[in-house]
C-alpha cells in the first residue's frame, strides 16, 4: 500500500501510527527511567499514546476492514504512516525529553485543528484524546523547563536532543496523501502547512524564552534533507526526503521552502523503523490469529 485509497485512512494513520510508535518508544524507558516516579509517569504516557492509537484504528476499521490489532501489528512496514521523529531510538534522557516536547507540542496543534473536523466522529474522538494529552504536554514542559535551566550537562543534553529532533519534528507536518480533498471537505480543517506555521511560531517563542532558539538556527533554511531508509522497504525511485528549513522573519520563526520526496506519511521510513517494527510485531507475526 503506497497510498491508502481513502485519504481519511491516511489522515487517521498519520496520527495513530505516530501515537503507536511513540508509545512503543516511550515504553522502552520502563524500568530504565532516571527514577521510579518518572518510570511510572513515562510508562503511563506510553500507555496513553497506545490507547489513542487504538481509538483511531477502531475509527478506521470500517474503512480498512481490519481490526485494531491487525492495524497495529499486522501490517507490512511500508503500510505504516509514522513520522521519522517517532521512530528514532530513545538515546539519552535529554533526547527523549526533547523529542517528547517537540512531538507533543506539535501533536497538540494538529489535534486542536481536528476538533473542528467535519467528520464529527473524529472530532469527538480527538477531544477525548486531548484530555489525556494535556498531561503529556505538562510533563514535557516541566522537564523542558528544568533541563533548560541547568545544570550545564542537562541543558546541553536537552539542546543536543532538540537539535537532533527539530528537523524531523518539522516533518511531522509533511503533507498527507489526498490532503487537498481532505481540506476541501473539511475533514482536515486546515492544511498541514498552516499547522506547521502555527507550531513553529509557538515553539519558537518557547525556545527563545529558554535561550535555546539556536537549535532552530542550526536547522536553518536549507538543512532539511533526511537520509532515507536502508531497510529496503521503499518502492520505486529513491528520492531524498527533505523538509522545509526554518528562519526568523519579522520577529517570528517561520518555515521556508517546501517538502520534497516522500517521508513517513507515504510509507517511507527512517532506518530505525524496521528493527522497531520487527520487535513490536514479532509475537503477532509468530502466532497469526492467536487470541490472548
Amino acid at each position, binding site marked *: 500500500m503506497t497510498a491508502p485509497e481513502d485519504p481519511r485512512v491516511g489522515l487517521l494513520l498519520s496520527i495513530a501510527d505516530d501515537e503507536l510508535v511513540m508509545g512503543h518508544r516511550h515504553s522502552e524507558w520502563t524500568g530504565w527511567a532516571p*527514577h*521510579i*516516579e*518518572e518510570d*511510572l*509517569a513515562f510508562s*503511563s504516557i506510553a*500507555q*496513553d499514546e497506545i*490507547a*489513542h492509537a487504538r*481509538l483511531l484504528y477502531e475509527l478506521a476499521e470500517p474503512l480498512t476492514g481490519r481490526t485494531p490489532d491487525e492495524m497495529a501489528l499486522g501490517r507490512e512496514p511500508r503500510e505504516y504512516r509514522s513520522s521519522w521523529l517517532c521512530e528514532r531510538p530513545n538515546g539519552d534522557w535529554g533526547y527523549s525529553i526533547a523529542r517528547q516536547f517537540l512531538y507533543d507540542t506539535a501533536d497538540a496543534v494538529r489535534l486542536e485543528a481536528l476538533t473542528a473536523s467535519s467528520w464529527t466522529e473524529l472530532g469527538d474522538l480527538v477531544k*477525548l484524546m486531548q*484530555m*489525556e494529552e*494535556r*498531561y503529556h504536554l*505538562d*510533563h514535557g514542559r*516541566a522537564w523542558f523547563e*528544568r533541563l533548560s535551566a541547568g545544570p550545564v550537562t542537562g541543558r546541553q543534553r536537552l539542546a543536543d536532543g532538540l537539535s537532533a529532533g527539530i528537523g524531523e519534528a518539522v516533518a511531522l507536518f509533511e503533507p498527507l496523501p489526498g490532503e487537498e480533498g481532505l481540506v476541501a471537505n473539511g475533514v482536515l480543517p486546515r492544511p498541514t502547512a498552516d499547522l506547521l506555521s502555527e507550531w513553529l511560531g509557538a515553539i519558537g517563542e518557547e525556545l527563545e524564552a529558554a535561550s535555546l532558539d539556536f537549535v532552530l538556527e542550526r536547522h536553518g533554511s536549507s538543512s532539511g534533507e533526511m537520509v532515507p531508509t536502508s531497510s529496503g522497504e521503499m518502492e520505486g525511485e529513491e528520492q531524498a526526503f527533505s523538509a522545509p528549513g526554518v528562519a526568523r522573519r519579522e520577529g517570528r520563526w517561520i518555515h521556508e521552502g517546501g517538502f520534497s520526496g516522500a517521508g513517513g506519511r507515504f510509507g517511507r521510513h527512517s532506518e530505525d523503523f524496521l528493527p522497531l517494527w520487527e520487535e513490536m510485531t514479532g509475537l503477532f507475526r509468530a502466532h497469526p490469529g492467536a487470541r*490472548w
Partner: protein
Amino acid sequence: MFVWDVLGKRSDDDEFTAVGGVKAPDAEMALLLARETHFRHKEGVAYAVRRRGEAELHAGSYGAELIGGITDRSYRRQEGYAGVGAKHRRVSEEMAGRGLVVDRPRPSPGRARALAREQAASHGTEDGGVPSGADLSPEDLAAQGTAG
C-alpha cells in the same frame, strides 16, 4: 531532591489523607509525578502534595474526571488477569489434543514436599528425605516445578 507526602481524597466528602510519597525537586514536579504514581488507577477524586516537614499543601490541578485518565485502562489493573487460569487450562487441553504440552502446573508447596518424599522413597534414599538434584531426572524436576 526533596521528599513530598502525597495526599488524596477518595471522594469529594473526604478530607485529604496521606497515601504515600514521591521525591521531586519542587511542588510542580511532585504533583506531576504523584498523579501517575498514586492515582493512575482512579484511586481518588483529588490529590495534593506537601513537602515533608512543612505545612503548605499544594493541590493538583486535574479534576476528578481526568485523574486516572479517560481511555480504557482496565488492562492496567490486576483484575485484568482474571480468568487467566481458566484460559491456561483451556489452551492446555487444546494443545494436549495435538500432543503438545504447554506447561506443567506447579504443585502447591505441600504437594511438592509430599511428591518429593514419594520420589525419594521410590529412588531408595535411606533416610526417606528429599533427594538431591543429582538424584532426580529432568522429568522429576519438571514434575516438581521450579518454585517452592
